[in-house]
């Protein structure tokens, strides 16, 4: 059996954990730069506010209904996520952190020892609520795809008390019939359109198809797997990190800008800043990256036609966590995609193909001695920045051209304090 734990309206719930007065009131959290809505409380959903709606478009509705608006506070969300995941890792046999607010559980073989699975995970749910004040829902089913589907229904049905177990054939059929086809994990917008055109409306109708049909219609073996998962045969296992640690498989650092940037040097400064931060995170978890992706985006609300985002992917000759190396390749990547005159609103750096440091294949012609000294330099750099604050020592490429606020720092007008990760922001109670 697999479980999927999903934190309800995660970012809003994090804000509520430290501001209980927000319970029962409409609350939204905006994306970086206060761009658009990325988390909504149930009350905000009921007002008709949608995910991804730009703030400027819904501002009148927010004002009219007295909706509490917050800028995103990732220092807080990251810490609260870690607390939830650590707890799950301490009680479940195996976990796979799927995103900041979702986690798959491997529950195989638990039933003979722990008895009723529903009672067991209901207790986990209660404990998470007590320890972190974050409400979660848990779906349990024979496959990951069905667990995800069960989770969605657990959220919708108040009678489930946040836990839904698809343990019988009748329940599986019932759950499939309740689920619109576009809400099945792995069915994107395009496939959903295609399926609806063939009058397949629900997950139940999809599950009734043949495997050969799925191979033809849903992209080969991936589609066939999806179908079998819906039919109750597991085709996907958990993908926990090998050593059972919570290290991530990829690291992303992206931001939108306060205003559009056009000059290469300005964009390079932003990209270099993101690459430096990503490299620092990489070293903190003891990993090295094999693949570097740089992307830059123009405004989706401008006059230009799509595509708005351009990206370049570079496979590194050896896995590295060396900022100097990564900056060099980031510059090459940016040169490939940057065009003069484009007003770019957003950029980002992604590091993929992570492996633990020390396992890299060495290049025949790379002088090893220098690599060691560079690793030492990076360790010293991290130590200095940890002691004197982030960015105390930086690469000149990563400096904004003009003094003052860097364009990628953006606006965070309504950000709450980082209650759990900064001494200055600690929760303060008047008594």
């Amino acid at each position, binding site marked *: 059996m697999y479980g999927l734990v999903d934190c309800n309206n995660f970012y809003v719930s994090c804000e509520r954990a430290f501001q*209980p007065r927000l319970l029962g009131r409409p609350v939204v959290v905006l994306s970086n730069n206060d761009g658009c809505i990325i988390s909504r409380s149930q009350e905000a959903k009921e007002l008709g506010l949608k995910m991804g709606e730009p703030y400027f478009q819904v501002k009148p509705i927010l004002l009219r209904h007295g909706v509490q608006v917050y800028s995103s506070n990732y220092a807080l969300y990251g810490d609260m996520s870690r607390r939830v995941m650590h707890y799950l890792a301490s009680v479940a046999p195996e976990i796979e952190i799927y995103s900041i607010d979702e986690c798959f559980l491997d529950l195989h073989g638990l039933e003979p020892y722990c008895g009723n699975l529903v009672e067991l995970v209901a207790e986990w749910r209660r404990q998470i609520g007590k320890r972190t004040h974050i409400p979660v829902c848990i779906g349990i089913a024979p496959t990951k795809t069905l667990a995800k589907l069960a989770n969605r229904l657990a959220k919708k049905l108040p009678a489930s008390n946040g836990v839904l177990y698809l343990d019988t054939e009748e329940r599986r059929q019932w759950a499939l019939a309740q689920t619109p086809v576009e809400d099945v994990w792995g069915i994107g917008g395009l496939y959903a359109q295609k399926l609806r055109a063939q009058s397949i409306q629900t997950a139940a109708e999809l599950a009734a198809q043949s495997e050969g049909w799925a191979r033809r219609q849903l992209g080969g073996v991936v589609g066939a797997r999806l179908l079998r998962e819906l039919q109750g045969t597991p085709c996907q296992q958990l993908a926990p990190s090998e050593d059972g640690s919570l290290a991530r498989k990829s690291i992303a650092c992206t931001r939108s800008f306060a205003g559009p940037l056009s000059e290469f040097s300005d964009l390079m400064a932003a990209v270099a800043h993101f690459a430096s931060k990503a490299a620092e995170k990489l070293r903190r978890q003891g990993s090295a990256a094999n693949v570097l992706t740089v992307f830059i985006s123009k405004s989706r609300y401008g006059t230009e036609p799509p595509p708005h985002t351009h990206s370049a992917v570079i496979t590194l000759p050896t896995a590295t966590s060396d900022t100097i190396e990564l900056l060099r390749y980031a510059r090459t990547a940016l040169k490939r995609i940057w065009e003069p005159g484009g007003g770019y609103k957003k950029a980002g750096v992604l590091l993929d193909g992570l492996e633990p440091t020390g396992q890299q294949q060495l290049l025949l012609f790379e002088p090893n001695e220098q690599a060691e000294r560079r690793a030492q330099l990076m360790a010293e750099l991290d130590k200095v920045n940890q002691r004197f604050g982030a960015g105390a020592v930086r690469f000149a490429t990563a400096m904004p051209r003009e003094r003052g606020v860097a364009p990628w720092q953006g606006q965070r007008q309504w950000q709450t304090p980082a209650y759990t990760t900064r001494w200055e922001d600690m929760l303060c109670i008047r008594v």
Partner: protein
Amino acid sequence: MCEVLFVPVIRRPLWLTFFDSRVSAGFPSPAEDHRGEKLDLNKLLLPHPDSTYLVRVMGDSMTGGESGIRDGALLAVDCQLQAQPDDVVIAVVEGQFTVKRLVKRKGDAWFLVPDNPTYPEIPINEPDLFDVWGVVTHVLTETRRSRTSAHVRVS
């Protein structure tokens, strides 16, 4: 796309050497033989780091009593503990945080009692509007002004 950052609680052990032998003045003690174990203060104060939060207190409604929570004190709050009668708790009353002692009196009547007798007690009449957010396990105060007092956030 957004940045996803997992921030670890900094919980590097702080090793203090604990000597378990009495000092005998005037006699050179072979210290090696008497060195005790090393103590990790974090282990003592934060046994459950994933459910413990640090909270700063402002105000004097808890001063003068047994808890010793002075204005500006730093509290370690463990949310996984079940509150017992006479625990000092972080309570939520009508949507607001407060720090008080949870007291049970005759007839299953519960009160939030300040340590400072000049402040009023809060009877818990409507359990629906009341919640225990966490249990205060330790209080950190300073005997002289130094680094921790710089962390008071005036709001």
